[in-house]
C-alpha cells in the first residue's frame, strides 16, 4: 500500500516501483485510512511517498505526521509488530521521524503511545531547495531489508551507477543527541550514507537513510523510485553498456524488500516491463 495525502506527488512512481519489484500495490488516501484503519492490516508492505504533504506548511511532513500520530499509531504499530516493511522517501522520511517510527525504540519494542521524536530533517545547510543526484553507499552490515538489494546483488552495481536523486529543502539529518547517534551507529541503523564530499544538505555523519531496530522500517531523503530505469541516471549517456545491465539500484531497493516479504534471497526482478 502507498499512502497519499493532499500534496503528495511521488505516489505514482512509488506504486510503479512496487509493481516492477513484483508486488501488487494500491494507492490509498490518508483520509480513507483514518476512516478505516483496519485496511492497514491487509497489506504486506507500506510506502510513504514524497511530495509536499499539506503544502509542507508549518514544516515538511508535519501535518501528515501529526494526523498519523493522533489517528493511526495503533494500526501502524500493529503493522510494525507484524513485520511489515515500510519505506518513507523524502517527505515520507520526514513523516516517519515525526511520527516516531524512525529511528524508533532502541530495543525494538513499540510503546503503547507514539515514541518521542528523537531525530529530525532540518532545513538544508544552505537554506535552499536542492535537486541533484548524489553518490551513496549502503552499509553492508545493516539489517535494513530495503538496502539489501544494493548489498547482496550479484554482480555488484558499478560505482558510477550507485547514485540516487535528492530533491528537498529540509533534508539535513539531525539527532536529538549523542545517545541517539550512538544507537544508530552501533545498531547498524545507518543503512545509507552520502559518499564523501556529496553531503550537500549537511546531514550528521552523511546520513542519507536510517532504519528501525528490526531493519524493516526505513526512511531516506533520496528518491529510489525516481531511478527505475537506466535512462533516469544523470549521465547515462556516458555510462558504459556493461554498467547498465539488469535492474537499477533504485528498483533493487524495492525488490530487496519484496524478496524479504516473500522469504526469498535477493534476485533481480524481470525487466520486461522496463524500457531504457
Amino acid at each position, binding site marked *: 500500500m502507498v499512502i497519499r495525502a*493532499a*500534496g*503528495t*506527488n*511521488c505516489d*505514482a*512512481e512509488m506504486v*510503479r516501483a512496487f509493481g516492477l519489484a513484483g508486488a501488487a500495490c494500491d494507492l490509498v*488516501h490518508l*483520509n*480513507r485510512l*483514518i476512516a478505516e484503519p483496519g485496511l492497514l492490516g491487509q497489506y504486506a508492505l507500506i510506502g510513504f511517498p514524497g*511530495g*509536499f504533504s*499539506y*503544502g*509542507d*506548511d*508549518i*514544516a515538511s511532513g*508535519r*501535518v501528515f505526521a*501529526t*494526523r498519523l*500520530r*493522533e489517528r493511526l499509531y495503533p494500526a501502524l504499530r500493529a503493522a510494525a509488530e507484524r513485520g511489515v516493511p515500510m519505506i518513507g522517501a523524502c517527505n515520507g522520511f520526514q513523516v516517519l521521524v*515525526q511520527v516516531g517510527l524512525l529511528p524508533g525504540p532502541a530495543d525494538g519494542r513499540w510503546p503503547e503511545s507514539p515514541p518521542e*521524536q528523537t*531525530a*529530525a530533517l*532540518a*532545513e*538544508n*545547510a*544552505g*537554506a535552499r*531547495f*536542492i*535537486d*541533484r*543526484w548524489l553518490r551513496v553507499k549502503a552499509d553492508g552490515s545493516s539489517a535494513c531489508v530495503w538496502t539489501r538489494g544494493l548489498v547482496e546483488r550479484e554482480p555488484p552495481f558499478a560505482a558510477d551507477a550507485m547514485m540516487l*536523486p535528492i*530533491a528537498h529543502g529540509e533534508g539535513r539529518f*539531525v*539527532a*536529538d543527541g549523542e545517545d541517539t547517534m550512538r544507537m544508530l551507529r552501533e545498531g547498524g541503523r545507518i543503512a545509507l550514507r552520502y559518499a564523501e*564530499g556529496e553531503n550537500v544538505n549537511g546531514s550528521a555523519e552523511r546520513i542519507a537513510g536510517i532504519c528501525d531496530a528490526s531493519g524493516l522500517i526505513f526512511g531516506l531523503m533520496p528518491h529510489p523510485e*525516481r*531511478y*527505475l530505469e537506466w*535512462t*533516469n541516471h*544523470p*549521465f547515462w*549517456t*556516458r555510462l558504459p553498456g556493461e554498467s547498465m545491465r539488469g535492474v537499477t539500484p533504485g528498483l533493487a531497493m524495492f525488490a530487496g524488500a519484496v524478496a524479504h516479504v516473500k522469504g526469498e534471497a535477493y534476485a533481480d526482478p524481470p525487466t520486461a*516491463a*522496463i*524500457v*531504457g
Partner: protein
Amino acid sequence: MAMTAESASVATAARKVHRIEVHPKASAGDPRGEAVLRDAAALGVKARGVRSARVYLIEAALAPEQVERVRAALLTNPVLEESALGAAPAAEGAELIEVHPLPGVMDPAAQTVREAVMELTGVADASVSTAERYELEGVTEAEAGLVAARLLSNAVIQRVHREPHWPGALPRGSAQEQPIRRVPVTGLADADLERLSREAHLFLDLHEMQAVRAYYREAGREPTDIELETLAQTWSEHCVHKTLKSTVTYRRTGGGAAIPGLDAPDERGARPGHEFHADGSVTIRNLLKSTVAAATFELIEDGVDWTLSVFKDNAGVIAFDDATAVNIKVETHNHPSAIEPYGGAATGVGGCIRDVIGTGLGAKPIANTDVFCVAHPDSFVEGETLPPGCLHPRRTLTRVVAGVRDYGNRMGIPTVNGAVAFDDRFVGNPLVFCGCVGVMPRDKIRGAARPGDLIVALGGRTGRDGVHGATFSSAELTDTHADEFAHAVQIGNAIEEKRLLDAILRARDAAGGPLYSAITDCGAGGFSSAVGEMGEEIGAEVDLERAPLKYDGLTYTEIWISEAQERMVLAVPEERLKVLARICEEERVEWCVLGRFGTEAKELVLRYRGAEVGRLGMDFLHDGLPTPVREAVWPGERAAGTMPPRPRAMRPSALKDALTALLANPNIASKRWIVRQYDHEVQGATVIKPLVGAAGEGPGDAAVVSPVAGSPRALAIGCGLALGLGDDAQGGDPYQMALAGVDECVRNLVCVGADPSRIAILDNFCWPSCKKPRNLGALVRAAAGCYDAAKAHRAPFVSGKDSLNNQFALADGRTIEIPYTLLITGVGIVQDKRRCATSDAKRAGSALVMVGETQGRLGGSQAFAMWGAEGEAATAPSVDLRAGCAAAGAVARVIREGLVLAAHDCSDGGLLVAVAEMLIGAAPAGQKAGLGAEMDLSLLPRCVRCPGVDTFVDGFEESPSRYVLEVGVEHLEAAQMVLAQAGVRSAVVGRLTDSGELRWGAAGLAAKVEELRAAWLGTLDW
C-alpha cells in the same frame, strides 16, 4: 478534515487571538537566519547575527490545554525548535522585524494550520495568520528598516512591524448592502468616454468605448457596472489579443533586407491575407490568422497529420502515440511579476498549469518550463541609478525563481527547461514566461458545454485578490503602478491546485466516462472569462451569491471578475453532479453550482441574490469588438529616443580573456543556481535533464521526458530566443529574430534526439506598445518570420500568447521600451529515448565536427553586445531556412544511427563557448584534469559571403543553423557521409584530448578547462 470530539469542558473558552512563537534551537542551527545575514551583507548591511522565527496568530475559542496541544503537537519540532505562547521582546540591542501578510492576501500556511487546529482540538471555527520574525544584531534601526523593505517584505502584500504584532482580533470583511449601479454612457461625448475608460481602469480605447455606447443606445438603457467590467475583461488585450487579430497596414520606409511577400511582392505567390497596394504598402487582415496560424493550417493541408487541436483550446494538442496526446501552453506573467515577483511568477506557473489541466476534457501536467528576461544585476544601484518604481533586478530574479520553485515543486511537476536573458531595458518591465506540458488520452481532447449543463466552480474560494488582472496586464507599467494595482497581485496556493488536479483527473477517468462535458480554468478575468468563453455558443445564467467567498464584503462585480487562483469551471450534466461531489469531498476540494449553461437568446445573464444585475448578448460580447485598421511602419534603422543597450567595454586582446569573459557573461553563464532549486526529477520520467555530464554541470540543450511509462517513445522540450538578432540597436531585424528563434529551438530539440519531422512550436511575443507604428511594424516582420520558419521546418505552431504593452514610463516622462522579444518553445517526439544524446564531451581522441556554415558576422552576438565590432563584421548573420532544415534532418539522422558521442548547438557565445561548454560537461566532479580539446579551424565551412578570416570573429560569432558534434574516429567517415549526402557542409575543427585544456594553436589560445568552468559557474552563484 474529520473532527475529533474534545472534552466538553473546553466549550466555554472565549474566542481570542493566541500568539505562538517558534524559534530554532541553538543546537539545531538557523539556516534561514544565516541566509538573511548573507543577503543583508549583499545589500551592504553587515549584521553581527540574524535569528529567525515563525509566528502563528490563532483566533479561536481554545482552552489553555488545547492551545498547549496545538503548540507542542502541531507547531513545534521538539528536536529542532522551541516555542512559547505570547510575544517575546527582541533581545537586548537587537532590531526586531516581523513580516505579516496584509488582510486578504493569500496565506497558504494559515489555511493548513487552521484545518489542522480544528481537527486536533475539535473547535468549530478558527482564523489563523502566520508571520516571519527576525532579530538582527549589530545593526542600526535604519539598517533594519532597509533589510525589512528590500529583502524581507514587499509592501504590496505584506506589512512590517517593528514590535511583536499581537492584535486583539484578526481582520475579516463585513457584509454590506449592494444596490445595482448603472453607469451612464449613452449620453457621453467621446472625451468623456475616454475619461470613463481611464478612471474606471477599463483600458478600452475610444473605438471600443464607442461600440459600447452604440450597443446601449440601441438597447435603450445604460449598462450596469458589471456589464462594463465584463466587456473590459473580455475585450482586454490579454484575453482577446486584439492587436494580433486586427487589420494592419504595413509599410517599409527604410533600407535593409527586403522580405519577399511583405516588403515586395513575391513572384512565387502572395502571403495569405496580405494585399499589396500601388504605393507599396500591404494590408494584412487578422495578423495572427495570416501568419502564425496560417502556417499551421497550410501544413495540415499539406500532410502534417499529427496535430490534434490548434489555437482553439487552452493549450495546443498533438499526437504522442496512438493512444496518447500531448498538450502544451506557454504564458507570460510580466506585470504582476514586476510588482510582486514571487507571487507573480508563482501564479503565472499556476495559471499555465491550469491551462493544461483545462484543455479538452483534462490533461495531466508532466513538465514545466520557465524563461525570464531581466536587467543585468550589476547595472543598477538601488536608491541611485535604479529608476523609482522598479525592483532591483537581482531581487526580481531571486524572487521570480523562488516563486516558480515553490509552485512547480509543490505541484509535483518537474521544471525541466528554461532560459534567462539579461538586458537593461527589462529593468522596469521584466518578462516571466511559464510553460506547461501535459498528457491526455486521445479520446478526451475535446469538450463542449451543453445547454442544461450546470456551471460548477471547483477549487479555491473567491476573494478580492487579482481584481483587474486582465486589464492591468494589458496596460503600460508606470512608477506608481505598484500602489494603484496592488489588488491585481496574487499569491498562489499550490496545494489547493494539486488537490484540484487530483479531483479533476479522477472525475475525468470516472467509470462511465467523464463527469463533465467541458472544463476551463479561471484565469484572467475570473468567472467572467471562463463562463463567458464556455457559454459563447449557448449562453449562460449565473447566480453570483453562490460562489464561496474568502471573506464577506465583496461586491457582485468583484465576485465576477476576481482572479483568485486555483479555480476551474466545469460544465456538468445534472445527473453526474452527485458523483463529482463525492470525489470533491474525498479530495477536500470545495465546489459550488454557480448557474446553468444555455439561455434562449444566447445571453449572459447575471443575478445577485435574485436580482438581475447584468444581461449581455454573447454575440456582442465575443464579436462586438471593433477591428480598426492599425498602422505599422518599419524604418529599417534604429529608433531614436529609446534607452540604449548597456555601454560596451574594450575588447580584451587575448582570446582566452575574451572567452573567459563570455563564459562569465550572465547570458551565457551557468544557470545552475536556478536549475538546482527546481525539482526536475519528480514523476521519475526525466530522461535528459537540464544539467548534463559527469558532474551534472554541463548545459543541456533541451530536456527529454518519458510521458508514458514503459514506452521507448519520449518527448523533447526546448526553446529558442534570439534577442540579439531582433535588436535593431545591434543591427538586428525582428524577421531574422523569428527565423533564428525557430532555428535555435529546432536545433536544441534535435541535439537531444528529437525527430525534426515531429516538432510542434509555440510563439510568445512580448513587445512594447503597438500603438507606435514602428513597434507594430517590428511585430509584422516577426510574424512573417514565424510563418516562413514554420513552413520551412514543417513545424506547426499549435498555441501561442502575446503580451503587447511591455514598457515602463519613468517619472520624468521618458519611456523604457523592452527589446522585441519572441520566445519560441518547442516539443519534439523522440522515437527511442535510448538513442538520446547530450552535450558533454565523452572521450579523448574523438573529432569535433562543425556542422553548418560560418558567416563571419558578429552582429546580434553576445560578443557584439559586450565589445561591439567594426566594418562588415558588425553586421548580423542571417538565417538560410533551406540550409537550417537540411542540417537539422542530417544531424538527427547521425544521432539516431548512433554515430555521435555528443551534440551541442552552437549559439550564444559561438563556437569556442560551445566547445568550452562541452568540456565543462565532461569534467568529473572534484577531479582536476578532465578532457581538453585541440582546435584547428583551417577547414571551417564558410559561407561565400563571409567577409574574411578573423580568429576573434570565427571564435565568437553566432551564425545560425550550426552544431558541434563529437564523433568517434571509427564513425567519422560514416557521419560526414550522411551530412554530405544531405547537402550539409561540415568539417573537423578539433580533436578531444586528455589535457584538460582548450587549445587553439593558430590563435594562441590555451585555457585550462578548470578555469573556464570556474568563470562559467561563478557569475550566478547566488
